[in-house]
Structure formats: C-alpha cells, structure tokens
C-alpha cells in the first residue's frame, strides 16, 4: 500500500461562526493525483488552505508526513500582473525565508534556469510576467512552486479562465510532473475538461460526498448531492461527460423564443 503523506481525520474548519468544512476524512498518498470538485462556497479552497497549513482545523486532526515539502500555485486571477517583477524573480521567491543575502546566487540562477527549461520557459527569465501568454504565465507559477522541490503540489483552479489549448497544455504538464514523482492535489470547477481526466476525484460540499475514480464518482446522484442541481452523465471513450440539464432547458426555451 502507498504511503500517506497527508491525512485528514474528521476535520472541520470555520470562518468565525460560518462552517466551511465539516468532518472531512481523507488520505493523500505519495503518488496521488487528486481533483477536488464542488460548487462555489463548498469548501474546496478551505480544504486546500487547511492542507497547506495556512488555516487551522477547528475540529479533527491533520497529519502531514514529517518534512513534507509543499508547493502552492494560486489562482492566476489573484496575481497583480503590473507588479514590477521578472519571471526569474518570481521563480526564485520561494527561497526567501531565512535568506539575508539579497542577490540571487550563481547556483540559484542555474537552478532557476533548469526549472524554467523543465517547463518550456527557457530564455524567458528576464521578461516581465505580463509579457507572457496565459499558458506561460500559469507555468511560471508552477515553476515557482517546483523550485521549492515539493513532495506535494497544490493548485487552486489551475485552468480557471484559460482557453482550451492552454488547458490541454497545463494538463499535459501536470501529467508529466506526476509521472516524475510529484503528488498533485488541485481544485477545479471544470468537470469535463479537467476533473474527468484525473485518476481520483473528491466531490466536496462542506463534507466529502464521494471519493474515487471519475467513472465511479461522476454520476447523477453524486452530482446532485454535490451541486444541488440535476445533471446528466454520458460516457464517451471510457470517460464521463457531464451535461448540465438546466442549461439544456434554457437552450430549448431560447431556441423556442427565436421562432
């Protein structure tokens, strides 16, 4: 059995009096590749925050493997793209704690170039972050997380607001990273474009609704309990495809009004 690197035992978390996460128990293995899905306000981000240790559980226990190194990739929407930093400066940031020498050392410069090459960003180190394409920008923040040499990479909505080709690019990159031995946990709203491709999905709405491979988890019953809305699930090429019934109804009405 694969070793667990993070374990939640009956974890609850609150913002003041508002309960954001209730009695969550789960295991993340060292070779895991897990997607957290759920509607807005369901506790996905809270779960990631508790996992990362920036938020404490109000009940229950979070156990992390001793010496576990975490890499975090925030939503790109939260980034200030006008901030005056270069790609290399962003990547080097994760080695800030406890460093008194302000300049990047030659060794760090080489390591930054290596991680940029690994992510297909070679030669872009001196560019301002706003001068890159959407896919390259997302890669810069993944590079920053990887520069910390993490055992577990945590990504918050990595495909939010990106086009289809960028989404494919990010998914390929994450698969490559997983195959190189990095455990990955990500939150996503994207059921068809991202979650259904992953080996394991956890459906969350305050608590864990279902946990398992996409074909076992993505079904109308689980989705209705998770999202509170009726959805149909089709199967194509061994993968589940979610059809939003409400949108289906609206499109019928719109087509009807166009007559």
């Amino acid at each position, binding site marked *: 059995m694969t070793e667990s690197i993070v374990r939640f035992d009956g974890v609850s978390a609150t913002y003041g009096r508002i309960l954001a996460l209730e009695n969550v128990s789960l295991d993340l293995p060292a070779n895991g590749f897990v997607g957290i899905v759920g509607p807005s306000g369901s506790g996905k981000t809270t779960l990631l925050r508790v996992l*990362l*240790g*920036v938020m404490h559980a109000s009940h229950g226990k979070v156990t992390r493997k001793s010496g576990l190194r*975490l890499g*975090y990739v*925030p939503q790109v929407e*939260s*980034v*200030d793209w*006008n*901030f*005056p*930093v*270069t790609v290399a*400066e*962003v990547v*080097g*940031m*994760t*080695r*800030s*704690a*406890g*460093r*008194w020498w*302000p300049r990047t050392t030659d060794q760090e410069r080489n390591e930054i170039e290596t991680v940029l090459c690994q992510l297909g960003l070679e030669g872009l180190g001196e560019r*301002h972050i706003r001068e890159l394409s959407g896919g390259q920008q997302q890669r810069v923040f993944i590079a*920053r997380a990887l520069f*910390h040499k993490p055992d577990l990479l945590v990504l918050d909505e990595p495909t939010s607001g990106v086009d289809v080709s960028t989404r494919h690019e990010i998914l390929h990159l994450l698969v490559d990273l997983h195959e190189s031995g990095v455990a990955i946990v990500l939150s996503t709203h994207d059921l068809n474009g991202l979650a259904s491709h992953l080996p394991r999905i956890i459906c969350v709405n305050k608590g864990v609704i279902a946990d398992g491979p996409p074909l076992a988890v993505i079904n109308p019953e689980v989705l209705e309990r998770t999202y509170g809305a009726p959805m149909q699930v089709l199967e194509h090429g061994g993968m589940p495809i979610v059809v939003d019934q409400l949108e289906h109804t609206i499109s019928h009405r719109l087509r009807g009004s166009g007559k």
Partner: protein
Amino acid sequence: MIALDLLEPYKYEFFRNGLLVAVIAGALCGLLGVFVVLRGMSYIGHGLSHAVFGGAAASAVMKVNYFLGAGIWGIVSGVLIGRISRKRVIGADAAIGVVTTGSFAVGLMLLNRYGQAKRSIEAVLFGSVLGVQTADIVAVSAVAIGVLAIIVLGYRRLLYATFDPEVARISGVRVGAVEVLLMAMLSCTIIVTMRVIGTLLISALLVVPAATTRLMTNSFARMLTIAPIVGAVSSFVGMNLAYHWDTSASGTIIAVGVVAFAVVYAVGGIRSRSRIGHLHV
C-alpha cells in the same frame, strides 16, 4: 554672477542643514515609497502622518522628547492601522480614517489648549527648514541607515510578502512580522521628516518619487535603486528653488516631484500610459 547667486543660500547654516535633511528625507521616502505604492498603501501613509501629529502635539505639551513621544505614538498608530487594514467589517479606509483623524484631532485640541497653537500647528503641518537642528540631522540619518539595512537584508522577504503574501506565508515567510516592520519603518520615517516636510506633504513625498520610478522600470530591484535618487534630486532642486523664489520648501519639493512625474509620464508615451492606469496610488 549667476553661479554666485546659485551658491548664495549655501552661506547660511540653516539652509545647509535643511538641505541635508531634505535630501536624506527625499531618498528615504523614495525608498519606502516603493512599498507604499506597490502595496496600494498611499492612504495609510497619509493617515499615519496625521496620526503622528497627535503624538508630536502630546509630546510638546507634556514636554517629552519629540522623537520619543511621537515615535511611540507613531509606531503604535502604525501597527494599529496595519491590523485594522486587514479587517473587513467596517472597511479598512473608514477604520483608518477614524484612527488617524481622531489622533490628529487630539493633537489639534492639545495645541489649542496648552501650546503656542498657531506657530506649532503651522510648523507641523507644513514643516520648517528654519527649525532644523543637529538632532534632526542625526535622527533622519540614523533612520535612513536603519531602513536601508533592513531593506537590503530583508529584500527577498519584503519582495515576496509584497507580491504574494499568502504564498509567501506558505513558503515560511513571517508575513505578519514583515507588515509590522514596514509600518514601523514608515512611522519612524514620518517622525524624523515631519519637521522639515510637514504632515500634509509627507504622503506626497512617499508616493510621487516611487510612482515616477514605476513609469521608468519594470524591475522591483531597479525601483528600489532609482526611487531614492528621484526623491533626493526632487528635494535638492526643490530646496534651492524655494530659496530663490521665496516659496514654501516642502511645497516646492513636492511640486518639483510632480513636474518630474509629468515629464516621465509624457516622455513614456503609450507604454507608460497603459501602466499608470493600474498604479495603486
């Protein structure tokens, strides 16, 4: 003849002292202003200078050393402002407004009731190069050296915590401590420069050189190098013009800074214009 005219103010010790303090203050405010501008804290700088006014008045009335009284008051206000800024219940701007204007009002009342009100208030509001003493030169130099040392040694953490505080925290940077340190540096800077620049115009000296520099470079490290130069040059030119034109020293320093901003903005063209729309000033 023109050269002699230009050198005339340097015959006077009060001018030399005032110029020295103003140039160091310009460089210091330019340096810290980088953080003020990039963190969208210009209102905090403005509020803090008003809050320190209360401490200055209280120390004058209680006959406590100005730097000690205003220093304690300023740092406490700064930390308080930093904490309130993170709360969202009534909105940070309203909360900061309450604290700083409250402090300003207390200072005004104390000077009205116990002090030589008019002279003291004008000196604190608009600053006075005539009043610069050796203690001011020592204080502003000491704070400048301290701030420079902290920014050099804490450069990486300051950059990370300014750009992305949440991820910096995850990477082990003590973001809360960085914020307290920044507020303490701001408070100390305002305290030692207030007697020359004045309460009303300190926030401008914190914002204008850094905003001008932002138009000139896309590098954080270069901003930290150029902004103090812009601040120091504005102070130097402003002080000299103020002597020859017989205008307010602090007002002229800021006016020179604003002219420099306008020139850089105009020269920068379309590229600069697209950037200025996103400045947090």
